[in-house]
């Protein structure tokens, strides 16, 4: 956090003016991406403000570990600014642009994907391209995994660097539910005959929005229009089926659909309390991790719907006006390192799915990822092969707005 | 000890346009002027005026001269006029020595020996570290008197200082206070409604009407 500010306002203002004048030529720091060593040297002593969703303690603890190492090894002070919605960070960058703050932005590194990335990129609010020049970028093996170069259908073009993978995975409590529904339509049938045992987070909470997209993809039979920018005609056409589905589903949800959990964790809590029998998460290891921590009962099992589920990649981006770009890149590079990715995938820590390609590693390095043991509560590898691509990012806000319009005041 | 003189030059006090009192008098070194009158006659207000903290609701005029200098323009703390209240008002958070030290001019050297000497003189030797809350009524009054004297005032005001003591202690304190004041040659004004106080003071007596 910030150091206490003790100067009087006027002094601050004058100092700011002087600083801006003195440093503006220099802040267009000559960053030479081809000389990584000098970049690391340049980054020494920088304080990097990393804006990342702070709703999951496991992630927060992982980032605290990263901060310690960054200081130790690179002399970089990494500050995790916990935000509840990445859109907040986007609005900050926009506001800074409007205020004419083009070189002293408050965000250096940003955990981002989907519509937030699309919005920033479209408005030239990102720095880059830089990501593919990171020494560790080769570890993701983008030739074999082209999804590392695409964010919700939008090409990343080096403006963001992969961090982790995510996939929508359903989990259920086998104590109450023996045979879980296998697709979106079955969920409706099952829910109607078992009222009050299912719910989903309230859009625009990202997991709730993902549920809407999952339903839309399945109900529309993967209509190609979903992978192109949304138009109102296409939206009307495709969303109609979704609204019919939700209108039928809501009365059978928990609290008869008059209440929706606020977030993924809220949903997990309802599962832990035995209020619902079926839930879902964006981290394939979520159920496993929560069973281990005691938040979920050991009877919980995970699976992927038979037609596949939405999967995506979480990226890291640098705003165009970031004041510590070198430090941000060094951090992004470290987060892609084998060491950082191994720790992130360790169920005792963050428990995420690595972004780098494990099979391309030598056997020694591969061993550090073997902490992910197969577990009853985790989905099988075959399950995780059934992936669905995220729709074009413009669909997300359109769906969220329409959902709020329809359901937030019933 | 300084030989000083206190003069009241046509001092008059009014409240809401109603005249309370007018005093025109002079008190010599070691003398006591006694002012008697029923409550509400304004005698305490007179002392407040001389000491420098009369509430602004009163209208007051007239000069107060100590050794020929008018002290009325001065703030209370620079008038060097000591005051004994009905209650001893020893500062409860300070020890006896602390109370006495508070009164002694910051510039004086060797406060400790001044305090020791003073305590011996009032018969309370060795009381330095005592808690004022543990003293008897008579002991408290003696410390209050000693504290006043240690602040080396040029004049002293006594606001019914004996009224809360029982009769035996009262006589004892009267003797002590007046002998001390006389010995230090201080002019004093005593406000009371006890005739015995006035007799013991032995000076001029002004009786106020309602």
């Amino acid at each position, binding site marked *: *956090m*910030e150091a*206490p*500010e003790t100067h009087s306002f006027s002094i601050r*203002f004058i100092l700011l003016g002087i600083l801006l004048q003195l440093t503006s030529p220099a802040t267009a720091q000559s960053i030479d991406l081809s000389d990584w060593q000098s970049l690391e040297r340049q980054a020494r002593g920088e304080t990097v403000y990393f804006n990342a969703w702070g*709703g*999951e*303690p496991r992630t927060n*603890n992982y980032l*605290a570990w990263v901060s310690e190492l960054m200081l130790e090894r690179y002399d970089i002070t990494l500050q995790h600014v916990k*935000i*509840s919605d990445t*859109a*907040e960070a*986007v*609005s*900050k960058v*926009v*506001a800074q642009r*409007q*205020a004419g*703050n083009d070189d002293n932005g*408050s965000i250096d590194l940003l955990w981002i994907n989907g519509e937030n990335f699309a919005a920033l990129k479209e408005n030239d609010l990102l720095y880059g391209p830089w990501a593919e020049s990171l020494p560790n970028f080769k570890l993701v093996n983008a030739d074999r995994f082209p999804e590392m170069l695409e964010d919700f259908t939008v090409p990343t073009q080096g403006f963001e660097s992969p961090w982790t993978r995510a996939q929508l995975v359903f989990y259920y409590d086998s104590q*109450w539910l023996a045979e879980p529904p296998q697709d979106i339509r079955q969920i409706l049938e099952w829910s109607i005959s078992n009222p*009050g045992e299912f719910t989903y987070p*309230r859009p625009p909470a990202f997991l709730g929005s993902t549920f809407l997209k999952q339903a839309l993809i399945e109900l529309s039979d993967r209509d190609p229009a979903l992978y192109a920018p949304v138009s109102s005609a296409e939206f009307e056409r495709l969303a109609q089926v979704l609204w019919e589905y939700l209108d039928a589903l809501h009365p059978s949800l*928990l*609290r*008869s659909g*008059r*209440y929706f959990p*606020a*977030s993924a*964790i809220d949903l*997990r809590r309802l599962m832990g*309390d*035995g*209020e619902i029998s079926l839930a879902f998460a964006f981290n394939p290891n979520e159920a496993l991790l929560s069973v281990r921590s005691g*938040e979920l009962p050991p009877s919980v099992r995970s699976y992927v719907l038979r037609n596949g589920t939405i999967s995506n990649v979480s990226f890291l981006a640098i705003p165009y006006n970031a004041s510590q770009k070198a430090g941000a890149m060094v951090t992004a590079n470290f987060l892609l390192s084998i060491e950082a990715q191994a720790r992130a995938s360790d169920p005792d820590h963050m428990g995420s799915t690595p972004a780098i390609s494990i099979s391309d590693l030598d056997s020694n390095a591969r061993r550090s990822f073997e902490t992910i043991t197969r577990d009853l509560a985790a989905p099988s590898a075959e399950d995780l092969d059934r992936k669905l691509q995220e729709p074009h990012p413009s669909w997300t806000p359109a769906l969220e707005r329409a959902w709020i319009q*329809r*359901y*937030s*005041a019933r | 000890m300084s030989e000083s003189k206190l003069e009241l030059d046509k001092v008059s006090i009014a409240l809401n346009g109603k005249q309370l009192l007018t005093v025109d008098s002079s008190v010599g070194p070691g003398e006591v002027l006694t002012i008697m009158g029923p409550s509400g006659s304004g005698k305490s207000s007179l002392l407040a005026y001389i000491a420098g*903290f009369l509430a*602004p609701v009163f209208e007051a005029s007239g000069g107060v001269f100590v050794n020929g200098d008018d002290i009325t323009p001065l703030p209370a*703390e*620079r008038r060097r*006029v*000591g*005051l004994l*209240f009905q*209650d001893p*008002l020893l500062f*409860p*958070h300070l020890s006896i020595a602390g109370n006495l030290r*508070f*009164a002694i001019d910051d510039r004086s050297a060797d406060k400790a020996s001044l305090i020791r000497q003073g305590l011996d003189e009032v018969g309370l030797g060795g009381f330095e570290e005592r*808690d004022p809350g*543990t003293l008897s009524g008579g002991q408290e009054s003696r410390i209050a008197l000693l504290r006043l004297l240690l*602040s080396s005032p040029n004049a002293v005001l006594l606001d019914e200082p004996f009224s809360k003591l029982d009769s035996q202690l009262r006589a004892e304190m009267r003797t002590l206070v007046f002998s001390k004041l006389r010995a230090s040659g201080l002019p004093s004004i005593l406000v009371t409604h006890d005739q015995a106080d006035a007799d013991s003071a032995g000076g001029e007596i002004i009786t106020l009407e309602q």
Partner: protein
Amino acid sequence: MLRWASHSLLILLAVPILLGTLIAILPAFGYFPTLGGTEFSLDAWRELVQVPGIKRSIQISLLSGVLTPLIALALVFLYLASASGSKLDNWMRRLVSPLLSFPHAAAAFGLAFLIAPSGLLSRLISPGLSGWERPPDLLIINDTWGLTLLFGLIVKEVPFLLLMSLAALPQLQPSKHVELARSLGYRPTIAWLKVIAPNLYPLIRLPVAAVIVFASATVDVALILGPTLPPTLSVRVLTWFNDADLNFRFLAAAGAILQLGTSLLAITIWLCLEKLCAVLWRFWVATGDRGTGERLVFFSGRGAMPIVLLVITGSLVALLVNAFAGPWRYPSVLPASWTFLHWTNNFQNLLTPLLNTLLISVGSTLSALVLVLATLESERQSGKLRATAMWLLYLPLLVPQIVFLFGFIVLTESMRWQGTMSLVIFGHFLFVLPYVFLSLSEAYRQLDPRWSQVASTLGASPFKSFWRIRIPLLLAPCLTAIAIGMAISISLFLPTQLLGAGRITTITSEAVALSSGASRNLIAVWAVVQLSLPMLGFLAALTVPRLLWRNRTGMREIR
């Protein structure tokens, strides 16, 4: 210099609040140059009317704005009528300050953990009494009409109104009047309601107004307990303000002005209720009835307060259990095991917010204390008891926070002064100041003036007598004022959230932010930390003078 203290006190309070409110009006009508709004328009209002469920949002805000003070005040009056002078009363008098220091957010979390379908109460009766093997599917927390929000607010405001009443009562000499009425054959509780209540009410009207405004515009309690489909008006304004699309700022501004209007409407409805109650009361007094309803008043007054106490205690227990609970399946009453893991895992995360909380609360409270002391001392030295405009002091409590903070942020953002510690401290200072003044002024004015007079006749300058006599004598009330000021600062959510631009986090801002996305254990840890800070403050305020003056018997009577 001292002479300026009271002026600067009023200016520091009034200017940011009035200016902030005025500035919030401009973007509501389209004027917001940094966002390209240079012409006045009604677009934001047109949009506001179209917002789904906006009517319901207003209704809920109005409902809690009127019912919270009504029920809380009724409970307090019934209690005072029936319990004055009883053993229960002695207990309550001692408990009321610590109860008041229970931060809103922590209390709301505790209540949620107590009465949720999977909460402590439900577990206590399950499966034995209720037959529930799984939590019942009941909409309790976040219910559509905000009844749980209302309940939480009442539980929280009863101690506040009780404290204000207890402070005002002595000047009415209640026991004398009640005795007189009893000699005329009135039962004591009826006598209290007929003789004391109508005289007490005018003395606590400002605190009641503060309750109306708070209840109709609260953000943190509403985020935790309030409805979500749609949420209260204040929560919606905050959401719009934080929206990624900055054009939502226009809508947020219009919403903020609507919030101001809603709070004013709640006050207007209240004023009508006042008139109605006055008529009913006069009618009731005129009947000359001396005992009817005695038992009802007696039992409801004596019964309600212990229930409030039980709810608060239950909330506290629910928080503590959750903070140390291992796996805890429904319907077990207690967790299968206990653990410190929630604490050790979060120690790192707690540190920065904890330090910030301390820095902000100490900074804002000490600056408020200095200004209040300077004001009171100048008042004393000038000898004029300035009737410091009470309503001005209440200003930060009478204007909905979200309204003037909104305008204030627009102002500071345009000066590029945002997200700094100094700004957050200043924001907290605005809310801390009235409480420090209210808690200290009485003791300061009551202190025997002769202490200072003795000091000055002994040659002590006002400076010396202030520092060496008045401050030590008033140490206990000063420390209490500091404890109250810090408790207020610690419990503040919106000023930190908005002025700190999300970059400065406190225990409270983090705890509220967690409300939508954290396990109960984690929330409980934060809430326990949040509520222990003010408790520690009050404990220190109580014990430090005792330790310091343990050899000074006279200090026990000074007040």
